């Protein structure tokens, strides 16, 4: 519990003059599932891209296994990325390859393994997500949930130390959601990988997460274990957990007073 695989230290990040994070620190403990939650549009995906080194923070530092990601050379960064993998919201399967080739892709790119070994590995990974029978289908023939499971098989192909899930439950039916929850939990335990789950699906993630961060208004507004979060007395956290329409996060987009606008002549 004390060892952190990813250590985000006081980062500030802004895009197009809009501040997205203001002095945020997050610790991701090794071998655990950490959930990062928050309302839509606060840049949760951005956090994963920062960890993956696709974006560089304005201030602060991000350490992966003790090494600073933003300060890495390009070559070193690519080397480090082999130890992490990311499950994108859309799955991001390569549309011009079959499911099998998608999963085999990283193995073929980064390992000198023979085709027969790759076949064994790929089929095992597909078996783990229950899609061995779909190996020869093209991504366009898969349902959304299956595509995400195939992408998950691809993400674990190189046995990474860190898997980042970007909104794994968004737009899924209850059955697929249940399957994914079970898979994330099982993979985390079986492979003892570190997982980061970015989501706004509260109930699913609270079941599996060992530790939870809630982001809102450019800050971390609460963190702790699932129980600690549920028992939190922060109004903001409670509004988020219970899905109340109005509260500290206002229902209305900031605007001038209604009566002033209606009676005045400016739009």
């Amino acid at each position, binding site marked *: 519990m004390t060892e952190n695989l990813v250590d985000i230290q006081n980062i500030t990040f802004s895009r197009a003059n809009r501040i997205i994070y203001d002095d945020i620190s997050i610790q991701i403990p090794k071998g655990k599932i950490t959930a990062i939650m928050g309302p839509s549009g606060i840049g949760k995906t951005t956090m994963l891209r920062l960890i993956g080194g*696709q974006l560089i923070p304005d201030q602060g530092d991000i350490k992966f296994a003790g090494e600073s990601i933003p300060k890495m050379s390009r070559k070193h960064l*690519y*080397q480090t990325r082999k130890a*992490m993998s990311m499950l994108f919201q*859309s799955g*991001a399967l390569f*549309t011009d390859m079959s499911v099998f080739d998608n999963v085999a892709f*990283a193995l073929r*790119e980064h390992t000198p393994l023979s085709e027969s070994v790759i076949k064994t590995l790929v089929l095992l990974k597909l078996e783990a997500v229950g899609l061995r029978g779909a190996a020869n289908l093209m991504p366009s023939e898969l349902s959304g949930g299956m595509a995400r499971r195939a992408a998950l098989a691809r993400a674990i192909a*190189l046995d990474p130390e860190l898997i980042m899930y970007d909104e794994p439950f968004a737009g899924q039916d209850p059955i697929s959601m249940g399957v994914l929850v079970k898979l994330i939990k099982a993979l985390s335990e079986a492979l003892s990988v570190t997982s980061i789950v970015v989501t706004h699906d509260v109930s699913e993630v609270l079941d599996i997460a060992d530790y939870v961060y809630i982001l809102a208004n450019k800050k971390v507004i609460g963190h702790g274990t699932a129980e600690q979060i549920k028992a939190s007395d922060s109004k903001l956290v409670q509004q988020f957990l219970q899905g109340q329409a109005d509260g500290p996060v206002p229902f209305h987009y900031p605007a001038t007073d209604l009566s002033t606008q209606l009676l005045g002549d400016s739009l």
Partner: protein
Amino acid sequence: MNWVVQVGANTLDTIRSFGRAFLMLTGALIAVPQLKNIRLTLQQIYVVGVQSLLIILVSGLFIGMVMALQGYTILVGYGAEGSLGPMVALSLLRELGPVVTALLFAGRAGSALTAEIGLMKATEQLSSLEMMAVDPLRRVVAPRVWAGIISMPMLAIIFSAIGILGGHLVGVDWLGVDSGSYWSIMQATVDWNKDVVNGIIKSIVFAIVVTWIAIFKGYDAVPTSEGISQATTQTVVYSSLAVLGLDFVLTALMFGIN
């Protein structure tokens, strides 16, 4: 004052996108060639080259035929229908071959490249490659750039050749120009270095420009459906304008001072 600000902002924007385009190209092409990449390039030559072959063959044939028909009606008035051969051959080799091929290529393969790469960006496939420690510039962009640069001159040569045959079909077989004079006066007039090689050089320049624009527009597209459709249109418009403008410059350099 506002419009001055606008002009300044637009200029800076344009310069910035040129910079990004240049970085993309150098990032993609400055690399040690690998066997794997040659196979990927081959795959892309199939997509951009072979799949454009039909439209090139059909348009080349018809343009050659139309030129023979039009040229014949004018030349026959001077009793110079024997010059039909060089007229068809020179127009095709110097101008129409490279230019029309580039325009058709921009419409057929260029727009497809933009849409494909734009979609790969929108569906996070490019990001996904990056996270899998595979450089999308080398894996996705480089093979397509090479395939475009290799394919288009090949298509232009085929276009000119089929056009000359089309001219023969109409001029000789239908309108009765003497076959011997069609070929021999053509041979007496057309020069390998001056006409054929210059045409190929033009085509290579167009290939670089069109492929570059197409791939950059996809790579730089706003990753939404609106952004991609806009980028696809821009590819066709920009590369057509670039081809026609460059054609004038190249023609002036090659044939103007003589």
